[in-house]
Every structure is written in structure tokens, then in C-alpha cells.
């Protein structure tokens, strides 16, 4: 049970400070000619440090493309996009890769845990990528895993031997271990049942949101909207509206 092992969730950020991500008129088209698909048609979005922003919308509306652009794993075609004060277009491929390694945490829909590595080794990967010695990385990974409710035995388990919720907790720990300033989560609850999904997002809300860290969660799971600070509604490649609270969305949406 995750909830019993967690400290109480911090209050939602009342006065978010600086902007972590600023997208202005961002465009992205896949393919060319008649088969071209305009995935982003001029996205404008700000994500502030210290907030959990959810990006919602129907399938195919461009959510995943937008987080890919923000995370620096996909290049944009046009517009401006500044992430933690940097613009990927002005950086080399290696510099972008290293920037991601240092500053961005990832939680994937299918978790993407390496099955040959134990839970604690999986969590240590971002630290090892950043050049931390293996022993130190494992020690730090164990601390984080402990916070998400893993005991020593579970830490030495391999992902295929664990449940979906447990694997997602490993993924969350992995996204946090190197203390990134931006965490991007793609459909973190889509492979989980309702109760587990709820607990996982609660865990993220508790552990991941911090003064200098922003969380961008792509989802269309309405059951977890309540954990968001703000919700950006996307449709057909553009941000239609940004709600300042889940309640506002509930009232107006």
C-alpha cells in the first residue's frame, strides 16, 4: 500500500514563481505533401516552476508530440520553445542529450524499465548516465525507492516480477533520482487500474512537485485531474484553454 507509507501531500503551489517552459507558436508537421500531418499548429503554453500541469485532450490531438518537443527528444519545425531557459535549436545533439540527462526526468506510459536490471539498478540509471559512480548511484537510488515504499527485497527484484503499480513507482523514482527541474510523464496511469493510478499520481504529487521543479503530465484520465495545479486542454494541435484549477475545469468543462 503506497498511501500509508507516504508523507502528507504538500499544498498546491499558491504563487508559482518563474517559468520553466515557454512555448510560443510551436509547430510540428510529420511527413510532407498530401500525407503531411500537422501535429502542432502553433502551441502557446507556459509551465511554471513548482506546478503540476496536466495536458489533456483526445487521442491524436498532439499531446505526445508536444511533450516530445518540450523534453527535447523531437525537434520542432517553427515557433519558440524555451526549456529551463535553454532553446534546443541552439544546442548540438550531444548538448541536448546531456541537457536532458541532467535536467529532465521521464515517466513513460509503458515504464520502459530495463528488465535485466533490478529495481534499484533501474533507478540508478540516470545517475550513472550523469557520471556518478555506480556504488553511490545505487545508494541514492535505494533512498528514493525507500521513499516510494520499496523494501530491500523489492529493490532487488526485477521489473517483470513486480506488479504494474510497483513498476510505475520504480519509474517515478527513476525520474526523480537525479533531482531534475522538469519531469515529463506520458499517460502515467493508462496501464494501471483506477485505485493504483490514483495512488501513483498522489505519490508523484507528493514527491515530485517542488519549488524549483515543474511536472508536465499528459493524460486523458479524468480521475486524476484533481491532482493538477493547472490543466491545459489541447485539441487539434493547439492549446484550446488553460484552466487554473481542476475545479474551474469541472465547472466550465
Amino acid at each position, binding site marked *: 500500500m503506497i498511501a500509508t507509507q507516504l508523507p502528507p501531500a504538500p499544498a498546491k503551489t499558491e504563487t508559482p514563481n518563474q517559468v520553466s517552459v515557454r512555448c510560443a507558436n510551436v509547430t510540428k508537421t510529420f511527413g510532407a505533401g498530401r500525407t503531411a500531418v500537422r501535429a502542432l499548429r502553433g502551441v502557446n503554453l507556459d509551465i511554471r516552476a513548482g506546478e503540476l500541469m496536466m495536458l489533456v485532450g483526445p487521442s491524436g490531438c498532439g499531446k*505526445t508530440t508536444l*511533450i*516530445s518537443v518540450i*523534453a527535447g*527528444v*523531437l525537434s520542432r519545425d517553427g515557433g519558440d520553445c524555451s526549456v529551463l531557459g535553454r532553446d534546443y535549436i541552439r544546442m548540438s*545533439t*550531444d548538448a541536448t*542529450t*546531456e*541537457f*536532458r*540527462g*541532467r535536467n*529532465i526526468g*521521464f515517466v*513513460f*506510459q*509503458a515504464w*520502459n524499465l*530495463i*528488465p*535485466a*536490471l533490478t529495481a534499484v*539498478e533501474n533507478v540508478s*540509471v*540516470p545517475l*550513472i*548516465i*550523469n557520471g556518478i559512480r*555506480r556504488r553511490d548511484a545505487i545508494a541514492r537510488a535505494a533512498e528514493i525507492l525507500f521513499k516510494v515504499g520499496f523494501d530491500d527485497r523489492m529493490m532487488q527484484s526485477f521489473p517483470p516480477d513486480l506488479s504494474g503499480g510497483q513498476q510505475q513507482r520504480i519509474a517515478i523514482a527513476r525520474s526523480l533520482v537525479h533531482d531534475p527541474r522538469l519531469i515529463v510523464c*506520458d*499517460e502515467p496511469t*493508462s496501464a494501471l487500474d483506477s485505485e493504483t493510478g490514483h495512488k501513483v499520481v498522489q505519490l508523484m504529487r507528493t514527491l515530485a512537485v517542488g519549488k524549483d521543479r515543474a511536472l508536465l503530465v499528459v493524460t486523458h484520465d479524468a480521475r486524476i485531474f484533481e491532482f493538477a495545479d493547472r490543466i491545459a486542454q489541447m485539441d487539434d494541435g493547439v492549446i484550446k484553454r488553460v484552466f487554473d484549477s481542476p475545479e474551474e475545469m469541472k465547472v466550465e468543462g
Partner: protein
Amino acid sequence: MNFIAIKMLLGDRAKYIGIVIGLTFASFLLTWPSALFTGVMKRTFSFVTDVGLPDIWVVDPQAQYIEDVKPLRDTEVLRVRGTEGVQWAVGLYKGMLRARMDDGTFQNCTVVGLDDATLIGGPPKMVAGELADLRQADSVIVDETGARGKLAKKQPDGRRVPLKIGDTLELNDHRCIVVGICRITQTFQNVPVLYTTYSRATTIAPQERKLLSFVIAKAKPGTDVSALCQRIGRLGLRAYTPYEFKKLTFWYFLKYTGMPINFLTVVTLGFIVGIAISGQTFYNFTLDNLRYFGTLKAMGTTNRKLLRMISLQAAEVGAIGYGLGVGAASAWGGFLSGRTQIAFSLPWPLLLVSASAVLVICIGAAAVSIRKVMKLEPAMVFRS
């Protein structure tokens, strides 16, 4: 990142074993025929190897290799001896004669006739008896393999008993007594080798006008052997250093027999099997792990680090596959060498060559995988 690479490799046990087995086979198939080829080629000049004493081998100018004996006049020994810079020179007879077995069958044997006075040119190692025993009447020394094998005496109950000292055999209707057993490097013809004196050998051999096969000579200390060979050449003969004579024989066999083609065919097959099995399995392994390589790339692993990871994986399976393949080849070769007359030789340069071939297979297998991972779009990690 190295431990991640190795753990990923070992994590997929079935594929890992498949790659290692593929490389083991490839390594075995590269090493085994190469070792046999080397063994066979070494046998072609084993006679020169065993007669280690002389600096110079003198033959008829038309002789193309060791077995291509074109007899010389006996007086050529004296002419070589008279050449400036020669310390000593003796004649040597080498011919193929038939030995009659107790059961009435015949066995071809190589008969070597040594200088009566000095017995120079004798076998490198005596197993039983002494070389000097050749001075006894009708004496011969038999090589160990021949004594145990083709010349072994058939018993009434069908068993074959190795020829031993005191036994007799008939060589071209001449009775000979075995006075010693020697150990020699196996010959290309793989027939028993009998040593006797020059005068006895030429008595036993069918009579011809000329019977001298080779003149072997030693240069005086400080003499330029190449220059001495040229001086002997002016006598109308051809003189080679042992190395040149071996090389002449080696190239003759390469040029005029199908051995290199057979060898290359088998080695090429081994190489193709290696590429096909290991390359394909390794590539499949990379494809199966593409999602994780993509994840690592998204999380900040540069292409350079990924390249190192895949290279390490290829090197690891390559080293293990190579070790197992070469180990299996040498174990099997060692096992058979002790029980059969197989020509198996695995010198260190051959190990280097097969290691290089396995390395090429690994690089080939890794290169395809590396290319795939290098071109990998990290955004793929967000596709479910």
C-alpha cells in the same frame, strides 16, 4: 554504463547463448581447418625440419620440392665438399620402397639412407635403441607411428602388435632387422619412415645409374650462407638454405594442389556461418532492446556512450565465443592427435588470425546494430 551493457546482454539468456554458440561455431570452423591446413603444410617439409643439422640442401636444379627427388651422381658430394666455405658435406638417400609384411601384403615406406661414416641426417629423437646401431648388419630404424600402425605385425587372432627391436621385415626382397624406434615429425605421405645407412639403402633400392637424393652441407663458421649457395650453384646444382627449401616446398603444394581452395572454402563457410548466426542474433538482440536503448538516449545517454555499450557487448560475446571455439578446436585436435595421425598444428600466429576473423565478425554484427541505435529517434520512447 558498462555494467548496464553487460547486464542487458546477459539478461536475455536465450539470445546471449545463441550469440555465443554462433561465435563458438564460427571460431571453431575458422580455427579447425586452419590448424589442419597448417599441420598438413608443415608435414610437406617435415623431412627438412627433422634433419636439423645442415645449413644447405643441394639438389638437382630441376627439383621443385622435397619429394621431387632427381638423383645426383655420388661424386657431387665431393664437389660440394670442395667448395670454398663448406665445413662438411654428406650424401643422403631418400626413396619410396615396398616392405613385405608377414601376412604377405605390401606397405610402401620412405627409406632414408644416412652417410655411413657420420650418420648425419638421422631422426631427431630415438624412442628405443641407438642411432649408432645402424652400423649393425641389415639394420633399420623404424619411426614410432609406422611401427605401431602400418608396419605393426598382424597376429593370428587378428591383433596388431607394434614392430619392436629385433623384429625383421623385408624391404624390396632384402631382409632387414629393426634396431631402433624413432620419433619423427609426421610426413605428408603419411607412410612409415625407415632409416638405414646410405650404402645399405642404395643396395636395397632398385638399381639406377644415380641414386644420391640430396647433398647436405654445413657452412664454415662466419661464412655467408647465401653466397655459399651461389658458389655451389655454379657447380650446376641448386643449393637452398633449409628455410628456402621449406618455402619452395610450401609454395609448390599451394600452387599445384587443391588444398588451399579446400581450406579457403571451409574457412569462408565458417566465416559466413559466423556472420549469419552471430550477426543476425546480435542484431535481433539489439532490435529487441531498441526500446531500452531509446529510453537511455532519451534520459541523456549520448550516441558515443551507446556506441561504447554495443561495442562492449560485441567484444564480450566475441571473446567468450572465440575462447570456447579455439578451446574446443585445440581440445579436439589434442584428443585426436594422441589417437590418430591427424595433422593438427595450432601455432600462435594462427590464433591471432582466427581472433582477427572473429573480431571482424563481431565488428560486422555490431556495426549494423550500432547504425540502428545511432539513427534511433529518442522520441520513439513516447510511442506506446
